[in-house]
């Protein structure tokens, strides 16, 4: 048995004509070793083992150039010469058919560009938080809870602020633990005599740099204390220029901090992109925050997870149970946070659904470009048949024809890959927001992507080449279809074209619906608020409230101001709006639910164009106390209230009988695709307002300056404002980017199919010019020629419409089912996706007609 596999190995690499003698000599030597009488003391078993060992060793030593290079096709360099000859003839062939080559090259380049770009985007999203040292040992604690009547669990990215300290002291497997939370959305910062309103200020504790490592430009992490602040490089430059800021004092919301260091800017692929860190995080300062911990190298993650759950049960479970709420802590690896499930109060996430969607679209585009290539190659197969059959008759091996088509595909794909790589390299650095130092490519990944592309092109080339090879085996020189009045497409070309139509129509139809749905779920504030609703941040200082109210009154008197509305807790719609526990009275009795709420004044709904669909809006009499509540439409749907919603009562805190529902308001659609709509409760404004929303009658930049000077005169604090449509745009930035990507992909697919169409028309025109010329001479009109030429293509299109639309419609219906608010799919949507294809066909038709018109029939058939 042992000898058998050794011999098989020899046969694998040894040239066939040498195998018999070498095998014989090896076996003869094996037998001699077995019968060796040199050492009579050796046992037979040992002799056998030794002989086998020597046989193996002797065989392996045949794996050498002196043997390998004796393969017949490698000898005398004839094979290399043959491949060089193929390459030369392929180059000549491609040069001879510039339109064919250009169409293929552009088509492949487009497909590969899209695929490369999407792969890079995907890779960028996967790279989040992986740059930290020991990232695989860092975890985050999250919290889940569920009220008695909650339909689903509420998942929170935060945990209680006492947790980091508990982890440090009570769990042996935890090496370090730290807490992190944003100080505020915007903080008032005073450096010297200059004030700034800044975003990106986070508070943490002094253990932060034990968990996360950063590169320090100035200062020392070991000297940090509670009154320290650490700046990022760009913020330090903004405040202090190129000087070292260490030792300088900065006031944040009237509290003084000493700059203790400067770290490099946080990499763009980091979940927490802060600009400055203060070290005041503890249970006395904040109730909630992110908790991160690093485990020891030898610690068990599962046992630490269990211990953290037990910690929660011991500390809080009994308190929560009184409110009929159950909950627990969970741990989540740092590297999974960005791609993980969205939680309340979470860091910005990648949208997995959209990524999957865009990646699939990119793969389809690559596929379309490959079908274009295949389509053109098979269309040309007839044309090249004469040349190939002559070669076969003259002695070329049939397989050589296949090799040549593979060489052609390889040359085209490598050229396309090179051009695409250059384009992507330039575009990536020009368009992407990522800093060059934050993002480095892994050679392994690049090789993987490149080899995938080459592999795809290679497979298609093999298939197309195999088809051409099959066709060229006919040892007769075919007549070039002189009396075949119009090219009947070969079944393979027809199949490719139908397939390509199917894919493109599905892609265009799906893109249209996805874009409509994106508009549907993110459309709020886009049209009616365009440059008209100004949102001013109200400082969190009680003593400025009279001044703000005074400012609001002054605004009401301005002719260009239509309305001014003050809003409180969770002032603007947000994924991170405030949540709390509410008791809901319904016909089934009282239930406990976790709900999102906000406080608004009487003009809020009117200002934001949120229609009241039942009941009434708030009045001035409602303000100042929680004695009325308005619920959103999705809340009514979620509760399944079939009777009058205004009969229900919702209670909060000490108000045990609950507050009457006085109205139902339309949903504010801004959630994006990341999660479904969340029911909302609106209460009258009672606490200090957070935002002042001003609706202008028309947009005029000079009025903005007027409002600013009024603010500075009345409130005497920095004026911080943004337009509401900009706020919503920022909120749905990822969805907007996806919209752009999908539109771009749809555009590329249209371009690709146009190229494919032109290619086929061009090839057919070249191939059939004699037949067309004859028909023209015999009196065929342009319309006759076009009619016969396009009959097949329109049939392909019709088949594609019949196959692709119902299929795409079914798939999209199931996708749309997850949304409460859906876009409507109607005839217009169908037509919108058909129009680009119709335009392409029209364009190709005109091109075709133009070429036919210019054709000089007599010149073509003069020598026949």
């Amino acid at each position: 048995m042992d000898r058998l596999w050794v011999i098989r190995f020899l046969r694998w690499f040894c040239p066939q004509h040498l195998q018999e003698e070498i095998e014989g000599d090896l076996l003869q030597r094996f037998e001699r070793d077995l019968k060796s009488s040199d050492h009579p003391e050796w046992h037979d078993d040992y002799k056998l083992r030794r002989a086998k060992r020597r046989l193996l060793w002797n065989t392996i030593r045949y794996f050498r150039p002196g043997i390998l290079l004796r393969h017949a096709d490698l000898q005398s360099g004839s094979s290399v010469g043959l491949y060089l000859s193929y390459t030369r003839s392929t180059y000549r062939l491609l040069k001879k058919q510039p339109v064919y080559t250009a169409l293929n090259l552009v088509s492949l380049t487009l497909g590969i560009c899209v695929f490369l770009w999407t792969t890079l985007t995907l890779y960028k999203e996967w790279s989040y938080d992986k740059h930290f040292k020991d990232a695989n040992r860092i975890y985050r604690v999250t919290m889940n809870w569920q009220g008695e009547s909650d339909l689903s669990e509420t998942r929170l990215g935060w945990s209680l602020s006492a947790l980091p300290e508990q982890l440090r002291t009570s769990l042996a497997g935890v090496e370090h633990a730290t807490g992190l939370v944003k100080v505020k959305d915007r903080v008032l910062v005073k450096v010297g005599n200059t004030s700034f309103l800044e975003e990106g200020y986070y508070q943490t504790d002094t253990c932060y740099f034990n968990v996360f490592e950063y590169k320090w430009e100035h200062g020392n992490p070991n000297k940090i204390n509670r009154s320290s602040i650490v700046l990022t490089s760009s913020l330090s430059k903004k405040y202090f220029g190129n000087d070292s800021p260490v030792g300088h004092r900065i006031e944040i919301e009237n509290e003084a901090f000493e700059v203790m260091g400067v770290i490099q800017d946080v990499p763009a692929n980091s979940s927490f992109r802060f600009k400055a860190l203060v070290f005041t995080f503890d249970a006395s300062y904040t109730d909630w925050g992110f908790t991160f911990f690093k485990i020891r190298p030898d610690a068990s993650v599962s046992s630490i997870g269990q211990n953290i759950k037990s910690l929660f049960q011991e500390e809080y479970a009994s308190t929560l149970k009184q409110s009929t709420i159950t909950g627990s802590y969970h741990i989540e690896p740092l590297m999974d946070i960005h791609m993980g499930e969205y939680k309340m109060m979470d860091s910005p996430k990648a949208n997995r659904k959209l990524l999957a969607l865009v990646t699939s679209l990119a793969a389809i585009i690559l596929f379309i470009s490959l079908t274009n290539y295949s389509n053109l190659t098979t269309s040309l197969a007839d044309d090249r048949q004469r040349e190939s059959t002559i070669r076969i008759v003259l002695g070329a091996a049939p397989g050589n024809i296949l090799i040549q088509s593979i060489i052609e595909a390889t040359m085209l794909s490598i050229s396309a890959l090179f051009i695409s790589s250059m384009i992507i390299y330039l575009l990536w650095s020009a368009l992407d927001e990522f800093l060059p130092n934050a993002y480095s490519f892994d050679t392994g990944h690049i090789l993987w992507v490149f080899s995938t592309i080459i592999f795809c092109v290679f497979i298609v080339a093999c298939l197309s080449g195999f088809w051409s090879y099959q066709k060229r085996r006919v040892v007769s020189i075919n007549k070039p279809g002189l009396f075949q009045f119009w090219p009947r497409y070969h079944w393979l070309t027809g199949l490719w074209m139908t397939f390509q139509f199917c894919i493109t129509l599905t892609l265009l139809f799906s893109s249209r619906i996805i874009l409509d749905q994106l508009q549907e779920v993110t459309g709020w504030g886009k049209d009616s608020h365009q440059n008209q609703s100004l949102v001013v941040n109200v400082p969190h200082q009680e003593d400025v409230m009279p001044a703000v109210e005074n400012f609001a009154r002054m605004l009401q008197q301005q002719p260009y101001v239509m309305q001014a509305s003050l809003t409180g807790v969770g002032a603007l719609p947000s994924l991170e709006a405030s949540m709390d526990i509410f008791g809901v009275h319904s016909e089934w009795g009282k239930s406990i639910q976790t709900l999102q709420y906000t406080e608004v004044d009487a003009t809020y709904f009117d200002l934001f164009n949120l229609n009241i669909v039942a009941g009434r809006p708030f009045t001035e009499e409602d303000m100042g106390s929680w004695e009325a509540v308005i619920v959103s439409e999705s809340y009514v749907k979620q509760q399944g209230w079939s009777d009058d919603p205004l009969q229900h009562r919702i209670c909060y805190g000490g108000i045990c009988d609950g507050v009457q529902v006085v109205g139902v308001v339309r949903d504010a659609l801004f959630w994006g695709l990341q999660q479904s709509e969340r029911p909302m409760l609106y209460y009258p404004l009672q606490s200090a307002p957070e935002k002042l929303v001003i609706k202008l009658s028309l947009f005029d930049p000079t009025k903005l300056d007027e409002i600013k000077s009024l603010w500075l005169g009345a409130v005497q604090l920095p004026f911080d404002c943004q337009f509401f449509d900009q706020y919503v745009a920022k909120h749905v930035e990822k969805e907007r980017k996806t919209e752009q990507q999908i539109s771009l992909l749809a555009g590329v697919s249209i371009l690709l199919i146009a190229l494919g169409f032109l290619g086929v028309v061009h090839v057919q025109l070249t191939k059939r010019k004699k037949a067309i010329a004859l028909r023209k001479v015999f009196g065929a009109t342009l319309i006759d020629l076009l009619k016969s030429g396009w009959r097949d293509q329109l049939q392909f299109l019709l088949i594609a419409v019949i196959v692709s639309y119902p299929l795409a419609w079914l798939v999209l219906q199931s996708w749309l089912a997850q949304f409460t608010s859906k876009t409507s799919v109607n005839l217009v949507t169908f037509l919108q996706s058909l129009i680009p294809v119709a335009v392409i066909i029209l364009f190709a038709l005109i091109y075709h007609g133009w070429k036919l018109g210019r054709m000089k029939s007599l010149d073509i058939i003069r020598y026949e």
Partner: protein
Amino acid sequence: MAKEYLGEFEELVLTLVAALQEDAYGAAIAEEIETRMKRDVNLSAVHVTLYRLEDKGFLKSSLGGGTNERGGRRKRIYTITNAGLAMLKAMKEARVDLWKLVPQLKIG
């Protein structure tokens, strides 16, 4: 055309092919080298040398008979060509000439 030269191992193999006559094949040549020269030799090296000598035109080969010991596989029997013999002769003469230049030991 450049003159062909033989390496030491090539010369050894060529000489043995000439000496073994009808019994000159890979395994036998390797065995002869081991027995007569007391030198460990690898079968693959012998084969590669034989092929090279055949390429140079110093040897020609034909398939012989198979034996049970060889699992029925036939031997490739090598025979020296006139060119091979001439080369061996030329090399021997060149060595003898060189040897004559070396002062001989005088006994007594």
